[in-house]
Each structure stands twice: as C-alpha cells, then as structure tokens.
C-alpha cells in the first residue's frame, strides 16, 4: 500500500514511455548527484583526455630506438613510473596505452551493441521461430567464454583479413581482437534488449500503430527503438567495461600486437620480462591500475545510468 497517493507524475500525460531521454533536464543532475555516477564520469573524462591526445601530455610513443632511460629502473624524478626492460618510460607507455586500449574498447563496443541490439529487437518483436532460433544462438555464445572462442577465431580472422591490413591506423592483429570481442559478447546485450522489447510490445501504442496499418519495420524503428535507447545506452557503457577487460586479457595471452602497447600488451611484456619475479612493480602497477580504474569507472557509470534511465519503482508495502 503506497503512502501519499495522489501525487502527480504519471507518464500518461506525455504519452511517452517512462524513462525517455526527453526528460533530460533533471537527468544530468540526477546522474551527477550519485556518487557512482560522479566518480565514473570523472575517471572517464581523465582517461578520455589522455586517450584523445596522449602526445600532448607525454610526447610521442617511445619505441626501441627512442628509449629515454635505463632498463628496468625503479621510479625516479625523471621517470615517475620507472622504465620497462627496453628502457622506455612507463608513464609514456601507459598514457599511450590509454589511446590504444580505449579505442579498441570503443570499436568492439560498437560492434557488440550493433549486433546485440539488432538481434534483441528482432527477436523480441518478431517472436516465434525467429526468436527461438536467435535465443538458442545467443545461449550458445553466452555459454562459451569469449577468451576461448577468441583463441580459435583469432587466427582464422587474421588469415581472412590479411596481416597487412590497416584500419584507422590500427593493425590487423588488433582489428582481430575488435572483431572477436564483437562477435562473442553480443549475447548479453541481446537478451537484455529482448526483454525490454517484449514488455514494450505489450504497450498500447504499438497496438495503435498496428491498427493504423504501419508495417513492422516502421514500428520497430519509430516506436520501439527510441524506447529501447535508454537501455542500449546503459548496456553500451557496461559493454565498454567488458571490452576493455577482454582486450586486456587477450593481449596478455599473446593475441595482441607487440608494437601497439595497449595496457594488456604492456602487461604481457612485463610477464615475459619476468617483472613479477623480479619485483619490478613499477612495470606492472601503472597499466594494471589504469585497466582497473577504467573498468570500474565504466561499471559504476553503467549502473548509475541504468538506475537513472530505467528507474525501478520504489515499492513499499
């Protein structure tokens, strides 16, 4: 039994489904008012800046020929994060790693969300055999861990696109990672979106559109898509976290590109150089901390977005 009934605020007034992004006025306030939303956005902005213009902050990416320090040196004033086994400055590596890791994460997220949303919307809306088939498919992908699939798919895709291909300055090995993550992580998004579509289907305005005679595709685009957007946005942010996480893992295992030092790749080099056993913590902590911070930030932000955009009713007896 709710207390204080009679308070206004029904969405029947506007005719839109609740949670529509249109109510953006209070949106930023609500999001930033939460600790998790605030922390998430701040961390993201910091790393986003670093990722967009790493050269601005630490100069060009050091490589074998432009190392600036002694190999495996602990942090000093000149090299606040120490150096790796080639003598490269860790701060330099880590900041450039931001660009690489986050770009890959972004591209993978785009693919995942595209596939996942498409599958989810079609499955939810069309229903029937198509739905069952798509859901069986997504179950299959849910069960299999991304990493394991990646091991198999990576060499194949690499072969397909050729080892010399380049897209936006990203070499094929990394492209492979992007594609692999995209191909294997869409299942969760598809399921989530599908549930939302199913519940939207029940709503009256879809029936109204049908009565007028609009075709399925039109309904999907004009009515369902806008109302699913909120969910997609929240899912995208969470997927980004997973994408960065996965990319780091895949690079660590050795599927990455040694010349493009994403954080995972740097950790791979650290492991190969025996850094843990040598106690060379400076080689490990910066990229590791960066990954953790970014993943955490996106997770927090994703949860905050989910709460703000899709509020669950405050039910009290």
């Amino acid at each position, binding site marked *: 039994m709710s207390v204080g009934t009679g*308070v206004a605020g029904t969405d029947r007034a506007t005719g839109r489904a609740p949670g529509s992004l249109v109510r953006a006025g209070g949106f930023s306030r609500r999001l930033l008012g939460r600790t998790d939303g605030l922390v998430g956005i701040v961390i993201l902005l910091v790393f986003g800046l670093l990722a967009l213009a790493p050269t601005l902050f630490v100069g060009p990416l050091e490589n074998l020929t432009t190392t600036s320090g002694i190999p495996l040196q602990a942090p000093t004033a000149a090299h606040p994060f120490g150096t790796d086994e080639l003598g490269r400055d860790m701060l330099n590596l880590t900041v450039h790693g931001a660009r690489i890791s986050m770009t890959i994460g972004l591209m993978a997220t785009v693919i995942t969300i595209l596939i996942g949303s498409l599958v989810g919307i079609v499955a939810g809306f069309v229903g029937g055999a198509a739905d069952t088939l798509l859901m069986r498919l997504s179950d299959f992908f849910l069960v299999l861990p991304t990493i394991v699939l990646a091991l198999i798919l990576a060499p194949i895709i690499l072969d397909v696109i050729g080892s010399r291909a380049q897209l936006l300055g990203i070499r094929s090995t990394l492209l492979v990672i992007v594609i692999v993550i995209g191909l294997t992580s869409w299942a969760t998004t598809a399921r989530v979106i599908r549930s939302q579509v199913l519940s939207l289907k029940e709503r009256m305005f879809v029936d109204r559109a049908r009565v007028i005679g609009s075709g399925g595709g039109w309904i999907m685009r004009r009515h369902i898509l806008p109302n699913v957007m909120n969910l997609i946005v929240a899912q995208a942010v969470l997927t980004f976290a997973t994408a960065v996480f996965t990319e780091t893992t895949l690079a660590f295992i050795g599927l990455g590109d040694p010349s493009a030092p994403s954080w995972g790749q740097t950790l791979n080099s650290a492991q190969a150089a025996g850094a843990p056993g040598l106690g060379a913590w400076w080689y490990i902590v910066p990229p590791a901390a960066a990954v953790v911070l970014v993943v955490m930030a996106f997770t927090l932000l994703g949860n905050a977005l989910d709460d703000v955009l899709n509020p669950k009713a405050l039910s009290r007896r």
Partner: protein
Amino acid sequence: MTHVEDRAPGYARPSAGGSPASLPTPASIRGRRQWPLPKLADPAAPLLEVEDLTVRFALRNGSVKAVDGVSFRLDDGEALGIAGESGCGKTTTALSLVRLLPANGRIRGGSVKLFGIDLVPKTEKQLARYRWREISMVFQGAMNALNPVRRVGDQIAEPIEVRLGQSRDASQKRARELLDLVGIPKQRSTAYPHELSGGMRQRAMIAMALSCDPALVIGDEPTTALDVMVQAQILQLLERLRHELGLSLMLITHDLSVIAETCDRVLVMYAGKVAEEGPVSRVFTAPRHPYTRKLLSAFPNIHADRRTLDVIPGAPPDLRTPPPGCRFAPRCAFAMDVCREVVPPEVRFADGVRVACHLFPTADTAPLVAASGPTAPLTVGRPADGAHEAAPWIPPVEDVPGVVAAPQGLRRLDEPAE
C-alpha cells in the same frame, strides 16, 4: 428526503451469532488460553488499546505522517474492521502494532497497549516476544507471503518450534492439526505453496497465524485476492474460528461487505485519521461522517432503483502537505469554512459511535460552526447538475440517540437561503 434506512439494505446484516451474548467473555477467553498472560499484563485491561498513534515515513523529499493521532480499542473476542481507501493508513496502523514497518517508517507518538502493556517503548528484542504469541497476522496475496521453497507444514510448525520451544515432531503434529482445523487435509502439509490453490493458501496462512494460540489475529486484506466463492468460505472459516476459539480479530479491508459480514465494530479511516468508529450495526445503518456515507453509498444497491454509481470525486490528499483542518474537506459535500481551518474534534455518541466531523460539533467548536457559513462544495469533476449526488442530508437529531444538538443556523445545502 431520502431516509438513511434506505441506504443500508445492500449489505448483510451482522449475523445473529455476532451479538455479544453468544461470544465467550473475556474471562473465559483468558482462562482458555494455552499460555498464561504475559507477566506484565493487567487482567482488567482490554485486549488492545491504541491511543493517539502517530507513524511517520521518511521519504526522499520530505516525510509523511501516514497515521496521525489514531485511537481505538479492541476487547477480547471482538472483531474490529478497519476500512478506508488505499493509502489511508489502515495497513500501516496494523503493521505498526507489532512494529513491522519498513525501514523508513517509525512510530512517532502514542501508545499501543496490549493487556495494558505499552509496546511502543519496548526494544526490538522485547517486542519480538509478543509477536505471533499474542498478535499474529494473515497477509494478503498469500502466494508471496509464504516462503516458496519451503513446505507449508514446516512453515506452520516453525513458530511452534522456535517460539514455543516444542520438539520438531510435536510441532509438525500440531501443524497438521491446525491444517485440519482450517479445513485442509492433513497430508497436504508436505506440499509447497505453489501446489496449493489460492483459497487453500489463505487457509494455510490462517492455520499458521493460529499456531501459537494468539490473543489477536490481524488480517490484512485476507480475502482481496480471492474470488467471491472462496472469499465467502474464508469468512465463514474466520467466523467459526472466532466462536470456537474465542479469537479476537482485526480485519483490514477496503471491502465494506466483508466488514459488514464478519465484524462487530468498524473503524473508518481517511488520510491517516479516524473519521468514524463504532458498532457495525450503527455505523452501517446510520452513518454520520460524510466520508462514511459516501463509502456506503458507493456500493451498488441491488434493492434500490437503478442509478449510476455514486463515486467520490477527487483523490486523497498528498500527505506530505496535508490540508489544514479536516482532511476530507476538499471532497466533502458538506464542507464549511470552519472545516478548512480547524481539525474537527472527536465526538462520542451514546450508541457507541465516535465521529470527527464539524457537523457534529462539541461545546467548544459549536460557536465556530455557527459562525461559519456553508460553502459550495469543492469537488473536482463534479457534475454541475448534481444528478449523481444524493441530496445532501444531515440526520435529524431524533434519529441519532444522544447526539449533541445541531447548532442553529445549520441548514441543508440544497435548501435556498432565507
């Protein structure tokens, strides 16, 4: 001029068995109890006495007094019905008796005396001792009120085992006996809740509520989720248990027919306050508070002429900012100026009815009422011609025994001014 008797007939009259003579007396009930009265109890005190109870909920943007100064009393063997719209505070009142409020709710004032023992100042631990053993509850929608992954028999036996310290076997045996008592075959005690029908689940809940032989059973909308046939069965069961076990009942419901059928007294609540309270036979045949009258007339009367449904226009007030004065004033057909400014005090009639309404003023408020003018009633969406509204009517003084004489100058609103 419509006569008040004409409005009564839609409801079943309280059954003959409800008259005081056939119910067990307080002494016999207390003597019959399996467990002695709590140590601190006062044998002379009524079973339950609630005085000026106030409950506050802390919300994100403010706080709400869901229950504001509610008082009532329940004697041994009585059945009290609490009626009102959703959100009027009836469930909150019941829950607060055993402090089952959600985390943001708190009792802010008043006393709840069980056999004379005030429960409000007790700590959680002390209070827990009285739960279920003295006061137990039957909740609505028993699908979720029963733990879905445990057997029904276990759940009934649980309080017997834990609270009364009986052995596992003895508790299970007693649980089966209780199931039998409420009309469920004993072997169903190994069933899970989802394997029982809605009516059977409700019976199981009742059996569970009786497991520690409490003095009072509170039913929160116990029949709301059930269809009419099953509803009747459950009510019959409750009646039977009342007489066989001398049980005291508190029924919370928005369904007045349930109260009419099962209860001795009724408490009508509105927006957290008591509107009217008294014996069912009096309140249902001679309702005094305008809200009560509206509630009763909102029921379709199959004996009367066909007419459209008499609804109460508007909505209950937002309790974060309750209106000054009488809370029903914005929707009341009889509202006067004084109603919008002064909270009406309670008046007690000789026939046992209490009302809080300026139409029945005390000696103190009589001058205010006389000075106040009746105003045009403020209702949202009220049809202009008033065709749906039964003519406003104040019971003549002779019809209501012991009423304070209506002050001079009070007139019917549909009469033209002199």
